[in-house]
């Protein structure tokens, strides 16, 4: 029996539910637009919209905070600070500041870095982890094919950078180090590190095809 010939093509079935699926760029756009709607509702005091915003974003936001801080206790505290701040500042968000997710990630990363620098003397943070541990953890994570494909895209983007760009970017972004500390760690002049971080972001941006 020839199985393939007996199957109608996809187009005869229901329309593809592309809006919910992120492989289509329209899906990504729809998701981003939904976050903007939620943010607008938050600014008018809708707590249920905030709860949905939390559910849609907390894995990302908590993830980056925990990566920078390493300590689950500190991460929980900073995550809470960030979400309270998102709620308070919701009316101040506007799309020309970038996507909601980028706005929130920026805030989360900034706070995590501020926290890590203020408490870094108490926390024994392993520098090598920041460079070499970055790839390990995500391999333990499974949250659907779509997310895996997204992660794969970013990893490929990172892999397309030069080793120094990648290390400088990783130390700064995930390690929470200042550019001067990165320069010391990599034994490079500050100017070089600055350029590598910027070039790294440019390379990654181009590899990901992120529309601004």
């Amino acid at each position, binding site marked *: 029996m020839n*199985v393939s010939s007996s199957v109608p093509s996809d187009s005869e079935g229901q329309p593809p539910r592309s809006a919910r699926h992120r492989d289509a760029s329209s899906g990504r756009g729809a998701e981003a637009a939904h976050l903007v709607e939620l943010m607008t509702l938050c600014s008018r005091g809708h707590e249920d919209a905030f709860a949905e915003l939390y559910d849609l974003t907390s894995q990302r936001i*908590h993830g980056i905070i925990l*990566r920078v801080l390493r300590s689950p206790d500190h991460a929980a*505290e900073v*995550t809470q600070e960030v979400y309270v701040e998102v709620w308070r500042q919701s009316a*101040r968000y506007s799309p020309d500041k970038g996507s909601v997710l980028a706005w929130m990630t*920026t805030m989360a990363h900034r706070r995590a870095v501020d926290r890590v620098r203020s408490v870094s003397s108490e926390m024994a943070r392993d520098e090598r982890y920041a460079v070499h541990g970055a790839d390990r953890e995500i391999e333990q994570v499974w*949250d659907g094919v779509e997310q895996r494909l997204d992660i794969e895209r970013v990893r490929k983007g990172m892999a397309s950078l030069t080793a120094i760009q990648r290390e400088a970017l990783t130390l700064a972004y995930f390690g929470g180090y200042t550019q001067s500390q990165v320069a010391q760690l990599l034994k490079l002049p500050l100017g070089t*590190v600055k350029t590598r971080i910027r070039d790294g*972001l440019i390379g990654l941006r181009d590899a990901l095809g992120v529309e601004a």
Partner: protein
Amino acid sequence: MSEIHGAVGSYVVNALNPEEREEFEAHLAVCPTCSREVVEFGETAAELSLLAIVPPPPTALRGSILSAISEIRPLPPEPPSEAAPAESAPSATSVPAEPGRAMDELALRRQRRRTRILGVLVAAVVAAAVALGGVVYTLVQGQQAQVAQQAAETELLTAPDVQTYSTTMKDGGQISFVVSRSLNRAMFIGKDLPAVGADRRYQLWTLEGQQAIPDNLVAGGGDRKEFFREPLSGVTGLAVSVEAAGGAQQPTPSTIQAVTDVSG
């Protein structure tokens, strides 16, 4: 490029010290190019954060946050500022520059207290779990099985030759087959599958040329994932049909939902 422009990357990844940050933000206010780059790189950095994804935060945190915000009134919108030149400049500086300073002290203290209370709660839950003893042990065993399943999934997903074939089934369900030839395994993943009725199941098939070999059964409704039982050697295609709950020996042609060529 002037030196100060060069700091834009470091600014976005928060690698500037307070003095450098202040200096750069002063520059941002008057430099549309850097302002645009800050927004662009902000999107890129947000994507980068995907690499930091770990399992979801503790559920207790959600409750703690939701109850914290219920006591806080969102700030009114910023009054439109006349000082800002046209469009591009204001964006970057107003990316949550110093939210910490603006934060109401009382709310901050309240939050801190809540976080401590959260810690106490967690400790209490752990103590209760210890008291439960045997029940917890059974739970742990269940988790271990889950961990083994997860390890198999991770192995498949990170296989160097892993390939994902996504398609829409006849009934509209979105599915993917994740295939690794080197591991000789394949997995079926259905997202938000349509219900097929209590006495019906999705049945997986491996295809070798014209022949269909029955494989595992998957319930309808919700998110499902299931490994194929059959090894992949010799398999040219993967298929799904809807069959009676007990499964069939041959796919019923009218209920075949999807056929994917994986020979490539």
